[in-house]
């Protein structure tokens, strides 16, 4: 599963990822080999001690903290003490699955991320294709630079602008008052939430998202276009038969990444912009975990809910990766 070791070596030459052969593992870690390795490389291993410490403390210790999900955690007993003295098995999970919140959170999480994926993923590719089609390089550069601009505004400020635009007297609030006759804060209307969230995502990320595809497009072999022209292919046919196959590898890898993040998308933005009036559509699993855990201090229960979210996410990314490897021979790991 070494994401880093996998595949993506020869993009410049062929635009295709080459799978690295996995070395035979059986006899790698013999006593003799370990002794020789440590003797020769101990100084280098010493150099990555800070890195290893970082991952142990800030990634793997919290993973150990997941044990809280199976106990009724009390700070005075600590994580392990609570697990032994106050073990509750799967109670936190069954509580969550049986609660009123479960289906609402599932629905909101899936709808928000699903819509976001369905809309922004193809739009990014289309925008990249449109930009790539521009012949005038100054115009192209200008459009690119301007479209990247919102990406460099911080999330807090973007949300601040959204809040300002959506309030009753804001730019969008006023516009909606004219259209619907109702004067209201748009962020107080549950049915507008996803539209507002996804639009603001598009504004901030659409332009910057094209960078990768434009880079991939510039790697498509020019000779293939020449060949296609000689065969009488029009621009549309060139797009279908040369351009898209040329960047399909990139598209698939980005799709795996996006689907893998389906449950883990930015809850920070939700937490910044939502309010109790619109929990009906805005509250997602991650924001619920935040509220329950850090605001209400219900540590064990919220850890369980968070674990549920992470596991679904893990299953999603593994499945997409497997499917992709099976059907397209492209995969992340």
């Amino acid at each position: 599963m070494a994401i880093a070791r996998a595949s993506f070596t020869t993009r410049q030459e062929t635009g295709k990822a080459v799978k690295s052969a996995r070395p035979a593992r059986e006899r790698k870690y013999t006593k003799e080999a370990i002794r020789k390795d440590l003797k020769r490389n101990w100084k280098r291993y010493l150099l990555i001690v800070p890195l290893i410490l970082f991952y142990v403390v800030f990634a793997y210790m919290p993973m150990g903290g997941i044990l809280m999900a199976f106990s009724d955690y009390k700070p005075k007993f600590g994580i392990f003490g609570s697990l032994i003295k106050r073990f509750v098995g799967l109670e936190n999970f069954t509580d969550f699955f049986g609660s009123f919140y479960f289906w609402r959170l599932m629905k909101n999480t899936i709808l928000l991320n699903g819509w976001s994926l369905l809309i922004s993923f193809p739009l990014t590719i289309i925008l990249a294709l449109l930009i790539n089609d521009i012949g005038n390089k100054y115009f192209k550069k200008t459009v690119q630079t301007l479209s990247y601009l919102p990406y460099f505004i911080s999330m807090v400020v973007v949300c601040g602008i959204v809040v300002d635009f959506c309030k009753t007297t804001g730019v969008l609030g006023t516009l909606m008052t004219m259209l619907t006759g109702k004067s209201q804060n748009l962020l107080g209307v549950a049915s507008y939430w996803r539209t507002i969230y996804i639009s603001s995502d598009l504004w901030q990320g659409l332009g910057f998202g094209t960078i990768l595809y434009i880079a991939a497009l510039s790697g498509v072999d020019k000779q293939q276009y020449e060949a296609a022209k000689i065969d009488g292919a029009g621009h549309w046919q060139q797009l279908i038969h040369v351009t898209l196959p040329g960047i399909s590898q990139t598209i698939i890898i980005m799709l795996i990444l996006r689907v893998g993040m389906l449950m883990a998308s930015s809850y920070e933005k939700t937490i910044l912009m939502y309010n109790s009036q619109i929990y009906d559509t805005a509250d997602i699993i991650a924001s619920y975990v935040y509220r329950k855990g850090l605001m209400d201090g219900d540590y064990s229960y919220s850890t369980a809910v968070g674990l549920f979210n992470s596991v679904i996410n893990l299953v999603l990314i593994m499945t997409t990766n497997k499917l992709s490897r099976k059907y397209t021979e492209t995969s992340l790991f």
Partner: protein
Amino acid sequence: MSSIAITPKENRIKSSFSRKAFVVFNYALLTALAIAFILPVIHVLFSSISDPYWLNTQSGLVLLPHGINFTGYKLVFNNSDLVRGFLNTMIYVTAATVLGLVVTIVSAYVLSRKDMLFVDAIMMLISFTMIFGGGIVPSYIIMQKLGLLNTRWAVILPACISTYNLIIMRTAFQTVPPALEESARLDGAGDLTVIFQVLLPLVKASAATIALYYIIQHWNSWFQASMYLQNRELFPLQLVLREILIVNDSNTAASMSALDAVSDANAYKQLVKYAVIIVSSAPMLVVYPFVMKYFESGVMVGAVKG
């Protein structure tokens, strides 16, 4: 040529007409999109230098400033919360970036060596953290146990390494021909000499890329600070901005202290908001067009190669 045989002349003329129509449409569409991308920023910019009383009567987009007025900016620069937030952010960005950069570069070099037995296994364990984690509550508990809550370290340490950046850097080291390192070794160079004097000059574009990523990440980050910090003295800029722009029930400490100085506080509220958006975003917006090429290469290495 076969193309002539396949494509009759009329057809080609027709297709070249539809092609031209498409090109015109494309230019128009992209112009409109580019405007849409910057319009909100222009609105904020022009509003921030307009007359505050006039501004409060406006409800549409402000496409031209009205009655040039810099009071908003004066209030922003005199606001002690904002100034302190900015200084705190400078500390966090500098410390976390320097620390993260050094550890990332040194470690990426080691992890890129193929002649070390455990490197693959370590890399696997590190990569795993990209797709699975303990979650916010266990992280919070760990920070509590380490006694880091409410200290500057709580903002600096947990975010100082990004796995994504580590992978970019490792990929860069892998592309350097081994002969360079070997010849330096023959001259008796140690690991750190090899990394910083022999190899780093060859991978400096990637190093610059991840440095930029780190800087932006730390500049924008607010969530960890909001989880781990209670002491307002330690708040980074983004948390102060959050109070002013979003929480802002007109009586939060930050927005009030800015306005106390002015008699007609309410009139200036909106103006201050716009000014603060511009001041806090200006550093990034001024710099980014000049460093775009690093982002382009970074995105390519990072996402296409893993």
